[in-house]
């Protein structure tokens, strides 16, 4: 076969391909043909080629394999044969049963036609019967319907005739609702036939209705009736087309009346409140009346549901009036407790009203008003504080000095004003703290704002205080001029002592009051909420401290200036008046020394009252009571002074220069501190410096020089006693003498014994004077 295959190959294969492609639409078959060697087992396909299969099988398998294949194949063929046989049998069976069924159907269908006709006949007869019944009963039914209508009509007529009696019964039993229902039911009939058939009936029932209406009105206005009943009455009246609006207006008037009564009562109460602090009783009466008002509103609202606008206005009026009264009260300084009392009453009213009249947004409304009032209250509190402080200052200094009663007016002023500042601020804080801590709903909502206001208030307060201080000190000229002539007089007479007190007070505020207040604020008024963080807290203690520190320094400086100015005037007079070139020989210490010392004494006493003692107190000289030892100038200088005139004059300048070179430069103008010594020292230094400058402007003869020498020598002891920096004073006193000698035509100093004698004489005289005055 294999041999055959080869020559056949070309032609036969093409033929088979063509055939198979024709019979099989599946191109996959042809492709499988092309790969026929690959699919040995493709026995089930349509394109199975038995010869090829055989060829392949023979070629590939050995004998044993072929035999086995043969057996397998034989078994398969047998199986297929049996299957085929079975299928044929089954099909045949089915065919037979189908033929049977068709035969049976043919037989059954024969009797159907006759049955259907019978059925039709019967239905027709039923229909004719029913029509007969219908026609026979028609007449009777119509009659019955007519009778029914008549009966209804009769019943209505009966009702109308009964109406007056029924209404009367209703009036008796006060069943007004029923009466109204009946009447409104009968209304259409009365309208249609009222003028003719039912005239009497109508009249009678209208009469009855009139009484009903009257009763209802009475009910509406009577306060004793329950609100429910009154509301019902109102509704019924409305149903009866009664002009409710006029009623409403009337009732509203009544409400207003009530409100006014309430107001009156409240005013009385507030008056009463001022007289005595017995709030419990008064508030209870107020309470009752407010309750009443709230009830009335509630009733009114129930009765006239569409009347909110008016009511809202009314209630807002009430609140507004409340706040107005409170504002008036605030203007007169009232305590926080009282203020809180007011607020509490208002808030309670508001809550009461709110329950009744939710739409009025009374809490919000009152919140706004409260905001205003509280702010005002805070502001007023601070202005009172300012006023108190300024009073403490002015009264104590101006008044008492005039009276001359007080021993230490400045000290008293300082202490009272210190107290006023600190205690006043603390009181304010404590008071205002009540505002913040109070759990009143109104204030809770405002808490953050209040904290802010208080902080702002303090800030503003201190600024105002500073301005006020300035005004008092007369330092700020433009301000005083802006204040006009009324203030001008006061400013003119500014007392140096006041300035000193202000200086110390500023220091006190900076160092004590502000930290304390800051602390207090931090503990009780922290956490400001409303104010944005970018703005920072409203109260800036640093800034206040800075303001008052600089203010304190400036006031102190101003005090010193004022004092030295006075001394300057004194010195100026001293040096302007005599002709120094023609001065006479010195006989005694000049008067101006007394005046100067007196001035310094005043300063000393003022300073002592106000300022504290310095810590570093130099030890005093033991021999300070003007004895000879201290009054004698140092030997070097004496030595120098006693040289011959011309020679000394020449060498003197050089010598002073040299002395200056070797002497440590004495710091004359050191920073002034807030101590007694420091201030006095500064003033004395400035005065001596002024003295030196005055001396330099004059020309002296010998006697003039000696006079100055004497005066200065006398001053030496008492000045040193008052002053901290003895070296500087010594230096300045020497400078005065040197300056005089430089400006002297003939500088020959007094002999020490004469100097001493004159000083002793002066001291003795002074002692004598003091003895007399004692």
């Amino acid at each position: 076969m294999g041999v055959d295959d080869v020559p056949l190959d070309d032609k036969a294969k093409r033929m088979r391909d063509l055939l198979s492609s024709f019979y099989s639409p599946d191109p996959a078959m042809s492709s499988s043909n092309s790969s026929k060697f690959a699919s040995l087992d493709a026995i089930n396909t349509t394109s199975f080629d038995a010869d090829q299969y055989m060829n392949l099988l023979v070629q590939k398998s050995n004998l044993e394999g072929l035999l086995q294949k043969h057996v397998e194949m034989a078994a398969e063929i047998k199986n297929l044969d049996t299957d085929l046989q079975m299928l044929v049998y089954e099909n045949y069976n089915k065919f037979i049963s189908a033929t049977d069924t068709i035969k049976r159907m043919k037989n059954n269908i024969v009797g159907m036609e006759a049955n259907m006709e019978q059925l039709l006949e019967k239905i027709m007869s039923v229909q004719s019967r029913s029509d007969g019944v219908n026609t026979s009963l028609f007449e009777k039914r119509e009659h019955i319907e007519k009778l029914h209508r008549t009966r209804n009509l009769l019943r209505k007529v009966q009702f109308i005739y009964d109406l007056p009696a029924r209404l009367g019964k209703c009036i008796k039993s006060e069943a007004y609702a029923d009466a109204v229902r009946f009447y409104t039911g009968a209304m259409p009939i009365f309208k249609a036939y009222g003028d003719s058939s039912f005239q009497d009936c109508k009249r009678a029932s209208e009469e009855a209705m009139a009484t009903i209406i009257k009763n209802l009105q009475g009910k509406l206005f009577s306060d004793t009736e329950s609100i429910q009943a009154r509301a019902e009455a109102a509704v019924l009246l409305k149903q009866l087309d009664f002009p409710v609006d006029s009623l409403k207006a009337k009732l509203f008037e009544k409400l207003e009346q009530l409100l006014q009564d309430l107001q009156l009562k409240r005013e009385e109460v507030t008056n009463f409140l001022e007289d005595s602090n017995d709030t419990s009783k008064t508030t209870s009466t107020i309470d009752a009346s407010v309750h009443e008002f709230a009830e009335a509103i509630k009733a009114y609202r129930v009765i006239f549901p569409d009347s909110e606008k008016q009511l809202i206005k009314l209630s807002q009026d009430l609140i507004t009036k409340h706040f107005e009264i409170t504002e008036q009260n605030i203007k007169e300084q009232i305590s926080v407790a009282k203020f809180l009392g007011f607020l509490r009453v208002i808030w309670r009213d508001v809550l009461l009203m709110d329950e009744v009249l939710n739409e009025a947004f009374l809490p919000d409304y009152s919140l706004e008003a409260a905001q205003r009032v509280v702010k005002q209250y805070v502001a007023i509190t601070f202005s009172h504080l300012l006023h108190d402080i300024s009073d403490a200052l002015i009264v104590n200094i101006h008044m008492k000095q005039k009276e001359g009663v007080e021993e230490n007016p400045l000290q008293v002023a300082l202490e009272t004003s210190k107290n006023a500042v600190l205690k006043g601020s603390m009181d304010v804080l404590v008071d205002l703290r009540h505002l913040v801590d109070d759990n009143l709903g109104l204030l809770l909502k405002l808490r953050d704002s209040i904290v802010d206001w208080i902080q702002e208030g303090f800030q503003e307060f201190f600024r105002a205080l500073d301005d006020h201080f300035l005004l008092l000190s007369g330092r700020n000229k433009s301000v005083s001029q802006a204040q006009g002539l009324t203030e001008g007089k006061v400013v003119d007479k500014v007392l140096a002592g006041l300035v000193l007190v202000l200086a110390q007070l500023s220091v006190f505020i900076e160092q004590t009051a502000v930290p304390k207040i800051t602390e207090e604020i931090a503990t009780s008024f922290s956490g400001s909420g409303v104010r944005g963080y970018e703005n920072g807290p409203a109260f800036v203690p640093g800034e206040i401290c800075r303001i008052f520190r600089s203010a304190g320094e400036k006031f102190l400086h101003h005090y010193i200036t004022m004092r030295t100015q006075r001394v300057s005037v004194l010195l100026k007079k001293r040096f302007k008046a005599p002709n120094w070139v023609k001065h006479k020989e010195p006989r005694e210490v000049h008067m101006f020394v007394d005046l100067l010392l007196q001035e310094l004494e005043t300063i000393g006493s003022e300073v002592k009252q106000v300022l504290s003692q310095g810590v570093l107190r130099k030890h005093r000289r033991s021999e300070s009571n003007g004895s000879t030892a201290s009054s004698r100038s140092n030997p070097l200088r004496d030595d120098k002074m006693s040289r011959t005139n011309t020679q000394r004059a020449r060498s003197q300048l050089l010598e002073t220069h040299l002395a200056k070179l070797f002497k440590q430069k004495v710091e004359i103008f050191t920073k002034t501190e807030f101590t007694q010594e420091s201030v006095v020292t500064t003033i004395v230094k400035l005065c001596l410096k002024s003295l030196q400058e005055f001396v330099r402007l004059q020309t002296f003869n010998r006697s003039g020089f000696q006079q100055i020498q004497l005066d200065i020598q006398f001053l030496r002891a008492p000045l040193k006693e008052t002053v901290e920096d003895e070296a500087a004073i010594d230096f300045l006193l020497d400078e005065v003498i040197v300056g005089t000698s430089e400006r002297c035509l003939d500088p020959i100093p007094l002999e020490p014994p004469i100097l001493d004698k004159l000083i002793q004489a002066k001291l003795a005289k002074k002692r004598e004077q003091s003895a007399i005055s004692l």
Partner: protein
Amino acid sequence: MQGASSGVGYGLKYQARCISDVKADTDHTSFITGTLSLREENEVHLIRLSSGGTELICEGLFSHPNEIWDLSSCPFDQRIFSTVFSTGESYGAAVWQIPELYGQLNSPQLEKIASLDAHSGKINCILWWPSGRNDKLISIDEENLFLWSLDCSKKAAQVQSKESAGMLHYLSGGAWDPHDVNAVAATCESSVQFWDLRTMNKTNSIDCTHVRNVDYDTKKKHILVTAEDESGIHVWDLRMPKVPIKELPGHAHWTWAISCNPEYDGLILSGGTDSTVNLWLASTSTGDGMTSESLVESPTQLVDPLLNSYSDYEDSVYGLAWSSREPWIFASLSYDGRVIVESVKPVLSKK
């Protein structure tokens, strides 16, 4: 604020009070100063700042018969100046000329052009016509105001007009308004008085006490600066004489001398008896005027008007003079006779 001592120093032999800028010398920055010594031979020093600005050279040293209380240089002739002097008992005033060939002479004598000898009391100062060549001179003594007409060639001075300040007004100094040559400000005990030279009448006055010195702002009309004993420095606008437009704290003791810079507006120099010279920048351009110093300065006012404080002095500073040639240079004179010339440039550049 302590300025490093950058100044150039020059020592006079004796104490001195007054120094003046030699305006007419356009080639050099020079100053003229005179000593105040009661019993010694007094001297007038003509000093010149070396071109490098590092040294003060004595250009001329002339003896002056009496101690000099006031000295001012003639604005149009660098060789002419005026002095007020005192013998100790009496005062005199004169206009002097520096001799031409002074370089060759050993101890050249000053040539007295004119003696202003109409005064009887204590003479305070002599004012030259503010700028340019003019023969007018003003001298002020305690009671009177004299207007002189000076003839340099004839060497004579004549009183043109004279006015008494009135009873109880002791004049102490003055300044000639550079903007209005007919106006002169004279200081007296309790006020600054303004005189009109045409009528010799008082036209106006400012109430302020203890004025030591007064100066007009050379750049700005109506602006006047006063130095007062205790209350520091005030800047006034003459149109509003009630309130000063500015207050400066001045010095720790009296403010003695004041001088406005001839070029830079608002730059004020003050000398005080606390041995310091303060340089202020007080902008006077505030139109609203009423910004008088208050304790609570608004942030804009917080700028310290004090630019610098020169404290390198041993004694009170009485003499101050800006150089008109180099307006950033000033000379100061302390009582111990030390001239210090400083430049304010380093301070200004910092600002």
